């Protein structure tokens, strides 16, 4: 039986990390994510884990990669300005396939912006923030329960696919208090990093497997290998061979693309007969969910696709939805970052429009309902 506890989103993220086996955290204080660091500085030593407050977010990202290579599940948490600084070493972790979890509690940007106010403006930064093409996984919690559950999932995906996973939270869910179910010890299936079993001589730490990854040996256990940000061969040695580079890309893309059934997480509500569908994620999905209830009370056939995985983008599901309903409305606390992706996938099959702002206030169920009524009413 899980136990039920009231906690806020940042606490749920911290507890989710501990439950998932995170035993190393490095970070730098930044609103509105700081509670995650404060809680973990207390909790990690209690479970034999390490907390280090680093000199900045560049170093925080570097430190979690180092710890992960030591065989420890590792995480950092930040907000927009810090996430910008992490992009360099985030790219290193992507390219050298080092598992780690990066939590970004979004606030209004650009720059220092509105530090205490929620936004969802880092959707595209989570996708393309570091230079060069690259696969990435980003999960967006839409409730305090999601903060716990998706943090656990983030560690699972990062270990399974040897990639950084971004938990793209926002100041709506992170500051919200809710009653959530916390699994008791032994109830949670924790994904442990697979270890190589063959001889060190034959070990290929960066094998160009299609659709999968080589087990990552912890440093110090007999499998000595080299890790570099340079494009490398299967041993990790730098190479400029274009044939190898092309095989590397195939591996990098396919390890995500061939596993979408596992990676893509979303929830659906009343989509079976919906004329109008909302697509929402993060804190905005809570307002969208309420708007669906209000609409149904009024006889409006409104449904919700709540995305938990936003990268990779759930193209097939969104495409099917675009063909099935007359209109898609996308409420976001930005000016249409995910909507552009939905429009691309819908490719004209349905009308796609947004409800957008980034002024520090939240999108309310009433605002969403008003737009829906306007679009579905007699004059629409």
């Amino acid at each position, binding site marked *: 039986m899980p136990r039920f506890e009231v906690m806020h989103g940042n606490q749920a993220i911290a507890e989710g990390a501990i439950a998932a086996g995170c035993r190393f955290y490095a970070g730098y204080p930044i609103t509105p994510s700081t509670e995650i660091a404060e809680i973990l500085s207390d909790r990690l030593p209690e479970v034999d884990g*390490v907390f280090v407050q680093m*000199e900045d977010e560049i170093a925080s990202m570097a430190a*979690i990669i*180092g710890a992960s290579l030591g065989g420890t599940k590792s995480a950092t948490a930040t907000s927009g300005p810090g996430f910008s600084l992490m992009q360099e070493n985030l790219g290193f972790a992507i390219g050298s396939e080092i598992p780690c979890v990066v939590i970004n509690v979004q606030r209004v940007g650009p720059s220092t912006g509105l530090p205490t106010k929620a936004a969802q403006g880092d959707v595209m930064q989570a996708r393309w923030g570091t230079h060069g093409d690259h696969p990435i996984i980003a999960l967006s919690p839409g409730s305090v329960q999601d903060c716990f559950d998706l943090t656990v999932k983030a560690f699972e995906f990062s270990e399974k696919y040897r990639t950084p996973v971004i938990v793209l939270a926002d100041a709506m869910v992170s500051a919200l208090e809710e009653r959530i179910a916390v699994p008791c010890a032994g109830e949670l299936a924790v994904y442990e990093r697979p270890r190589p079993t063959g001889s060190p001589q034959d070990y290929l730490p960066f094998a160009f497997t299609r659709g999968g990854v080589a087990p990552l040996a912890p*440093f*110090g256990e007999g499998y000595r290998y*080299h890790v570099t940000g340079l494009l490398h061969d299967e041993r990790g040695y*730098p190479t400029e061979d274009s044939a190898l580079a092309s095989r590397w890309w195939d591996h990098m893309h396919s390890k995500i693309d061939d596993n979408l059934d596992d990676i893509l997480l979303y929830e659906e509500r009343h989509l079976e007969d919906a004329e109008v569908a909302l697509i929402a994620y993060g804190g905005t999905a809570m307002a969208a969910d309420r708007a669906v209830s209000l609409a149904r009370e009024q006889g409006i056939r409104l449904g919700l696709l709540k995305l938990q995985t936003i990268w990779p983008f759930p193209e097939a599901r969104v495409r099917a939805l675009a063909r099935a309903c007359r209109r898609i409305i996308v409420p976001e606390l930005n000016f249409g970052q995910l909507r552009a992706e939905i429009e691309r996938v819908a490719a004209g099959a349905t009308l796609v429009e947004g409800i957008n702002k980034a002024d520090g206030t939240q999108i309310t169920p009433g605002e969403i309902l008003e737009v829906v009524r306007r679009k579905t009413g007699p004059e629409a």
Partner: protein
Amino acid sequence: MNLQTSLIIRDYLRPAMLPTTWCPGCGLGIIMSSIAQAIHYQGLRKDDVAMISGIGCTGRMSGYMDFNSIHTTHGRAPAFATGLKMARPDMHVFVIMGDGDAMSIGGNHLLSAMRRNIDVTAIVVNNSIYGLTGGQTSPTTPRDSKTATARHRTFERAMELEVLARAAGAPFFARATVNHTASLTKLVERAMQISGFALIEVISNCHVLYGRMNDTPEAATMIAQMDVQTWRSTPALQKRAERAVRMTAAGAASVEPETVDGFEGMSSDQRKDRGVIIENKGSVGFSRRYHSLLEELRNDRRSGGE
């Protein structure tokens, strides 16, 4: 005592990664050899050693050596090393940086790692120039030098690593050159005894870029200059060591050893130690401190459970 080069290559390097990208006459090979020898003489298992480097000519060193190695991003090696050391407190972690890597783009990480006193042995190879990118001004380029980005001359003061180490409280700082290999090996071994951030600055030569632009295009000439300049930083001459040793701009080659007084009469023991500028043997590193907290908590939990 020197290990044969063939033995170092066989036992401590990765043959598949060779030859190196370094120019003929570069001091980096000498430094790599000294580090391998120090590890050999200290009797460490290769599995227990990590070599973490940044970007630049020096950054390539970690890949050539057969340890657990990370060729990280520019300037960030101390931060990667911090994470690894905390996760694997029993490993001996080396951090290898160049002068631009350590003192320009990585300045904050270096300062913070020293202040935090994370338990690593750090080597900063100072050749006064950005080598890999083609001879641009570095934070240790002496004033009035010519570089690829200062075709007329440089105007900035060269940064002194020793002063940074003092300010940040590093428990060990030594300076060596590629002209004193036996001494360098000894210094690395001595740094490895320290619990905490032990730093060695190694003066090296980039005759190909710095030298060619500043009238010392021969490796031998540049290395000969070091013989003169290093004496200024011996313990015996510490009072004179107010300024960091550096490759001076044009004209330094004309300095003759005889013009530097005080070296005569130094015993061989003193010579071995020369270069040690800060040494706090009582230092307790961050990792050791943190892991003793974890042990206390483990003991508390055990006794609480009884």
